[in-house]
């Protein structure tokens, strides 16, 4: 049995075929659905440097290709972060008694700064962001994807 397949029919068929053969994974939708918490009222720290985007090509660089270095500004503070596969190491300047949180879609982890404003926290796979509880002004870095 044959029938006329006009453009609308064909696109409609294709849409159904793609939804069966290449569906959006439920886990990805769940992660996206959880993306809105806590971001709305926090101020967004400004990205000032990203080694991934700003550095010279790999051939000209040192042998530290597994570390991504980022710098953010939040008010008058500078936040430097080095991200490796399993760890986040950073420094906030000027230092101070500032609670911070390392946030991933799977959960969050409190961290403390030392006297020099340094911190260190293990991270799992997937994106990560840093919440800074600046007095009266909660601030977050954008999500860092890895």
């Amino acid at each position: 049995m044959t029938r006329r397949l006009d453009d609308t029919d064909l696109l409609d068929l294709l849409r159904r075929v793609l939804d069966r053969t290449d569906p959006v994974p439920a886990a990805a939708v769940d992660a996206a659905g959880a993306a809105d918490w806590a971001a709305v009222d926090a101020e967004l720290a400004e990205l000032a440097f990203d080694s991934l985007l700003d550095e010279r090509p790999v051939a000209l660089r040192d042998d530290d290709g597994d570390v991504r270095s980022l710098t953010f500004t939040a008010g008058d503070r500078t936040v430097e972060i080095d991200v490796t596969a399993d760890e986040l190491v950073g420094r906030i300047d000027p230092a101070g008694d500032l609670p911070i949180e390392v946030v991933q879609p799977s959960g969050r982890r409190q961290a403390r700064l030392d006297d020099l404003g340094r911190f260190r926290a293990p991270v799992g796979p997937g994106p990560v962001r840093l919440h800074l509880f600046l007095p009266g002004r909660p601030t977050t870095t954008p999500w860092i994807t890895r």
Partner: protein
Amino acid sequence: MAATTQTMRGVTRTRRRPFPRGTTLGGRTRTPRAGTYADTVRSPTGEREQPRFEDLVPRAIDGDHAAWESIVARLQRVVWHAIAGFDLSAADRQDAFAATFFRLSERLATVQQPQKLPGWVATTARNEVLTLLRARRRLTPTDPADMALPASPATSDDSLLDDELHRAVHRGFAALPPRCQELLRLATLDPPLSYAEIGELLDMPHGSIGPTRQRCLDQLRSSPDLRPFTED
């Protein structure tokens, strides 16, 4: 270069970094054009009334989680299919997908033209993919177009299709040139992307999208797989 934008809540927020090319949410024209899909509440493919982005965005900004989930639900196919044509592992494609919604949640308060969200998330998703690929390869690409490979990870398995016609469409689609596959994927989206948005994504002049779309559909229709189902 500082740009001050008026947020939906009337709070003035300063951002120094412009969005990447083609991703501006707040353009100079503030009034949505009449006749865009955003003016209709009826989906072109479904019978149910769809919530409008104009209503969902302010509610999500005010912390209404259900509104945010509706936004994700309405945009998920746009994001997923916008990043189909890259050489990505399944895990990386999911990461880029989720990251796109993270970006959107960060920028929600600066959305001035909610009806442009589909185009914005599609562009953002592809930028996320380029960032991921850069991180994977640790290279500075000379041309982003070089990083798009004609990979189509989702067109191999048709065991899920019980309908002969669906299987034929699937096989015919998989045999199309990668460019056609990408364009037709984008043409199946709801909410739809404009030809201008598709042109921007595929780096094609938008005047050529309509004719190319037609050519790709004709090619699919006349593929050997589909011949048995179509009239002469």
